């Protein structure tokens, strides 16, 4: 059985480092600790619902970074692999731009399609059916002027 590790020329970056046991085990312990922190943070109210969620996602992101950096070996990976990791997750945030539609809908009030109604408001189904028409309105989906 060969005792020399399978690795390629160190001149080209040496990306196939054999990771030492202490690093892997330590990483796992650290992740377990972060897991307990996650649980604790979920029970602790930071006062603001936004802050609560931000803290939870922040801890999850830190855990993810450690998994990616150490367990998945990105620490030793080529530059291209690193770029792909950043680009991939970064691109995901781009897709969250879809939420912009929902965030900006209430800027344009349309009678019968209000958003702060019992059924939640993001559905494109009109709230009142049939829509209640006020006498001075000129047809549906008409933005009241003045």
């Amino acid at each position, binding site marked *: *059985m*060969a*005792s*020399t*590790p*399978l*690795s*390629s*020329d*160190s*001149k*080209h970056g*040496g*990306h*196939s*480092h*054999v*990771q*030492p*046991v202490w690093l*892997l*085990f330590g*990483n*796992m312990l650290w*992740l*377990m600790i972060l*897991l307990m922190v*996650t*649980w604790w943070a*979920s029970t602790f*109210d930071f006062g603001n*619902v936004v802050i*609560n*969620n931000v803290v*939870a*996602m922040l801890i*999850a992101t830190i855990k*993810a970074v450690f*998994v*990616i950096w150490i*367990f*998945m*070996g990105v620490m030793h*990976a*080529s530059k*291209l*692999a690193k770029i*792909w990791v950043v680009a*991939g*997750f970064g*691109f*995901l945030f781009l*897709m*969250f731009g*879809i*939420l912009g539609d*929902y965030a900006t809908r209430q800027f344009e009030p349309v009678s019968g399609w209000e958003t702060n109604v019992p059924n*939640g*408001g*993001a559905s494109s189904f009109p709230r009142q059916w049939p829509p209640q028409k006020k006498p001075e309105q000129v047809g549906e989906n008409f933005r009241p002027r003045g």
Partner: protein
Amino acid sequence: MAAIASDHGHGHGHDEALHHQFENMEQQNDSYIVGMWTFLVTEVMFFGALFLIYTLYRSMYQMDWYLAHEALNVQMGMVNTFVLLFSSFTVAMAVRYAQLQKKWGVLSMLAITQVCAGAFMVVKYFEYQEKFGHHLYPGPGFGSHPEYLHGATPNFAQLYFGLYFGMTGLHGLHVLVGMIVIGYLMAKWWRNSPMVTKDYIPTELVGLYWHFVDLVWIFLFPLMYLMPKP
């Protein structure tokens, strides 16, 4: 942590693990790692779309979703998370042993990983069984025992459970596929196939996939099980 210069890195291709389209092992290894990461990027977008749907609906129905999520068993979720984190460690150890060409190290670590994955699936089975028993699976019978809804509006709770089963189901499917692939890898190591003994990359690629499965769960767990009160 040595990066020893190999004697097959300069284009002669006598390494039996070198495939015909590559000039040297370094190009081959790099290509496989980049290729696997490209695939993982697709998986990020795949699960990411589901996380997007989750984000939207949760922001719309915060209270109902908080109430509905109380039906989930946090302890079981914690056990699952521990198990997956541990399995991530064992599969990283397996990759390490593969690089050192230590067959029994690889096999033992992969076996532990399989056990962890199996434990995850078993816990998941019990969780699902509990949900079905409480009529929390979306459909006609949903909410027939309203006490399990914890006061959430049944319609919005159905959305929550729809996403719960969809996302954890898809994740569980990935775990199952991972188990099959790890089993196949173990079979290759068992038989001393040169595909794995002379080349650590297949083991590394399986490891990358498994870490990704763990990554998804790292995000899924707090979002599904540990919602802060709105």
